[in-house]
């Protein structure tokens, strides 16, 4: 990793939702701020800035991560995915997103992007989850509106649909 100077702004380059992106950041800039305010992808939200609420969750090289506890400079060269990359194409929803809508798994929607990212990462590795496992994954997220039950149902429903679906790849991936 190159040595960065605290007093200077440095270029940061990585892939965001499959697309090469670049911006300039002070070494201390948080990844969440960088994605939102430098790159203009505001779907990722910030609810606490101390790693508890999970609203800022993104996928970095296939692993879920808190973008409020990650510096922009740390993702140099990485593959980052955010909520904007979940839908297969503009005007369509992924299986998971559609399940959220069907089950009323969101109200204000402020927590939702982070939850979708965690579930997306988790379901890729665990296509047949149990409800306690889903609840365990969701325990890293705070939602003040829904009481979680519809989120759990949406996740279980999406998992079932994805495991049935031969279209899984073309529905879910960018």
């Amino acid at each position, binding site marked *: 990793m190159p040595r960065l100077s605290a007093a200077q702004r440095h270029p940061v380059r990585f892939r965001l939702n499959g697309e090469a992106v670049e911006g300039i950041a002070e070494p201390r800039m948080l990844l969440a701020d960088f994605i*939102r305010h430098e790159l203009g992808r505001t779907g990722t939200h910030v609810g606490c800035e101390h790693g508890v609420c999970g609203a800022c969750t993104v996928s970095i090289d296939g692993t879920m991560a808190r973008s409020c506890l990650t510096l922009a400079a740390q993702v140099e060269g990485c593959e980052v995915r955010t909520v904007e990359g979940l839908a297969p194409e503009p005007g369509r929803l992924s299986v998971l997103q559609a399940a959220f809508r069907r089950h009323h798994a969101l109200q204000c929607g402020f927590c939702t992007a982070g939850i979708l990212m965690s579930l997306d990462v988790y379901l890729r590795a665990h296509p047949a989850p149990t409800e306690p496992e889903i609840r365990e994954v*969701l*325990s890293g997220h705070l939602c003040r509106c*829904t009481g979680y039950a519809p989120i759990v149902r949406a996740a279980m429903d999406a998992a079932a649909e994805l495991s049935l679906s031969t279209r899984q790849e073309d529905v879910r991936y960018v």
Partner: protein
Amino acid sequence: MGLTATMTSSARSGPWIGRSPERVEDAALLTGNGRFIDDLGVRPGTLHAAILRSPHAHADILTIDTAAARAAPGVAAVVIGPDVKALTASLVVGVKAPVECWPIAVDRVRYVGEPVAVVVASDRYKAEDALDLIEVRYAPRPSVIDPLAAIAADAPILHDGFPHNVASDRRFRYGDPEAAFAAASHRIAIDIVYPRNSCTPIETYGVVAEYSVSDDAYDILANFQGPFSIHAVISRALKLPGNRVRLRTPPDSGGSFGVKQGVFPYIVLIAAAARIAGRPVKWIEDRLEHLCASSSATNRATTLAAAVDDEGRVLALDWDQVEDCGAHLRAPEPATLYRMHGNLTGAYDIRHMSVRNRVIVTNKTPTGLNRGFGGPQVYFALERLMQRIAVELDIDPLDVIRRNLVPGNAFPYRTASGALLDSGDYAETIELGAREGGLDELKARRAAARAEGRLYGIGYTAVVEPSVSNMGYLSTVLTPAERRRAGPKNGAQATATVSIDPVGAVSVHVASVPQGQGHRTVLAQVIADVFGVAPQDVRVNTEIDTAKDAWSIASGNYSSRFAAAVAGTAKLAADRIAVRLRRIAASHLNVEASEVAFGNGKVFSRDNPDNAMPFARLAALSHWSPGSLPDAAGQTIRETVFWTPEQLAAPDDADRINSSLCHGFIFDICGVEIDRATGEVRIDRYVTAHDCGTILHPGMVDGQIRGGFGQGFGAALLEEFAYGADGSFLTGTFADYLLPTSTELPEPVIVHMQTPSPFTPLGAKGVGEGNCMSTPVCIANAVADALGEKNIVLPLVPARIRALIAGEEPPAPVGGMTAPRAKKPGGRGLEGEGSADVGAPPQAVWDMLLDPATLQAVIPGCHGVEKISDTHFRAEVTLGIGPVKGRYRAEVKLFDLDAPRAVTLSGTADGALGYGAGEGRITLTPRDDGGTTVSYTYDAEIGGKVASIGGRLLDGAARVIIGQFFAALARHAGGGAPAAGAAGGLSGWLRRLFGGAR
């Protein structure tokens, strides 16, 4: 899957109201295309604000030195109290008293977190950098945290205009309570302490403000939620008429639950900062600011007594409520106390009542709207009392509830204090809830559990859920004479506009400012039913712009008024247009207007549906061919309706007030099992039966119930804004202020009954707040039943339950010298003791401890030690405690020197992140091997940000730092090692806090 929600007309039969179509809001929110306040662009050149806040609960501000901050890179302005005072007027205070209320401290701070300075800079990072450069000197005053302590004779006074810290003291009398108490065979009473908590939306406050010198006007964007009566407070504070204060809301808001009403002081503050800076200014609150200083529900101390007959019938109530509104009485407080005034008899037929209401100020964050608003506090007392009546008279608690209910044939029913309960059949809802919720089975489980010696309890609550507040209820705080002078206040104006464009497309605008409740979806359903079109063809806008939209003081999203008032008003507006459309259609279809029907996108003759024309064509005629319309049909382009229910009258001279228009009914049952060993409360089953009148969208109603239940569950078991005895705020992160997560929050069993309200256009009542009122006390009643306990204090954290089961915990065993002693109760004071072995004789160690050069080398993070005298040192150190790393200036003085055996140190530390003061004693004992055992005890008080967000870590951190000190001392002396155990579980703590998944 297409983006358009599945609301197609082909599948429909019957009305859209009462069905659960997918929400029109969701596609944008699910794809990252929501438009929350921090997602919107700002004008080029917009500056960013950061706020310096008080670390003290109560102190005079002696000086504020902003010179270094002003000179910092990127800083455009530094704003302090007197600057704001020069540009604004005091915020309106909710009672008549010679008291001022500013959005930033002027001369004195009265709660931890009160704004002291605002830095405005080119970006937020630079603004926060500059905060660290501001030097404030405070002279701390004694503080008071507890409302009952605040009214004691010798309590410190917050405001001279509130003698004894009492902002208001009113007594009310309805019926003949004295006679009822004298005649009753029992007087049963309960004392309640209801804690402080908040529904903490996941999106924090945000404001973007701009001042135009040429227009002498402010343009403000804020995720404010209403009520828009506050707009008058804002414009008054900004010293401009309301038409020069344009307030807009963003399209999306990340939850509010009442809390975002409390953004208004920051609207004034940021507007003033923008005027001073001469540029637009944006401020997004961070989570610490939100938890410590945004707003909160009130905490309340209540004594409630009932006159009861032998059958458990309540003949009279005697309320004594002491309401804690925090450091300032901000509008609309003391509304929390008066919102329930008409409903103080709950679901019960009680004709006699006396009430004493005191409103108190303490050194805590000022309070404001919060879901349930006054309901949790009232019902906790009332429903705990009903449970106590059952226990003391040995009657089944559910029978006590049943025997006191307002009878089903009594509606509309006028309560003793003036509420008009609109409709319901409470007894029927209870039977339904008990049956469908499986009460018999729960009772069997309780019997089985108890037979095995397990702790199992069942709790009940019956709650009337008021909705659609009367804007006049707050004037009940005034005496009838004061009210006559002030002029009448009442009603609840709702507004809605329906418009049709030149191609016949329908739009709706309401001033309801949703924060996730799906208003747009429901309005599309309601209007689609009127015009016979598909919901997705109706576009709904719920943003508000006070410069352009129809609005009034009752606008906004609070008191669960959407379904009952706003949706109904939208229907009235659409109905007006529909009447005209019928008349126009009649002339085109050659039928009577009464024959005209709407459906499937067409307007047709009811008798002959083939005689039809497309809705869009008919609807557009008013644009294209007004001259061809029948005489007096009127335009069909745009209709705005203002609707206020006549039932919402001003309080009468006997202080009777119909505080709300609608009254839903909730009956809850909760079965809990308590783990004897851990004190953990597990909800076995939670049943909540609702009668909220006509249900417009069942999916959303259940969503509101589940969400409210989650917050009620949190209030019962986890959440409290905790303060130290000195007023330090202790719960500044979501790792300290615990919210329910998916692993502990169960799903309630929801049961519905629908008794339409006769007072609302659609028959709907509010439903969003009920479980915040019913759930905390229902869980408490279940725990009381399980433990056979009277004094139940929320939140029911395991430690509290354990204390109830087994008495206070024994002190932790003193396993070694490094074991910390038990902390002082309630404080974030630190105490500890320990020892270390150093490989040098006592005299050598003694000399090292008194030598600045040695100290500088061995104190962790030390930048320098200055020797002021032989017994006075000054040091600069950087310490990291949990997430907060900062530089502190320490002063240490030595006393009781007993060379080379013992010394007492006393000192203070001060820095941007907090302050501390403490005392310690070090004892040196020679060892057989020629070395020295250094033993120490310490006792310190910590305040400021470090206490708010590092509180859990302080003990561990102190031990680590002291351990490092002695390790370094030992190294310096050449040998030895500190006694083990100091660093203990800190890395575990840090992992838990910052390791990703919680």
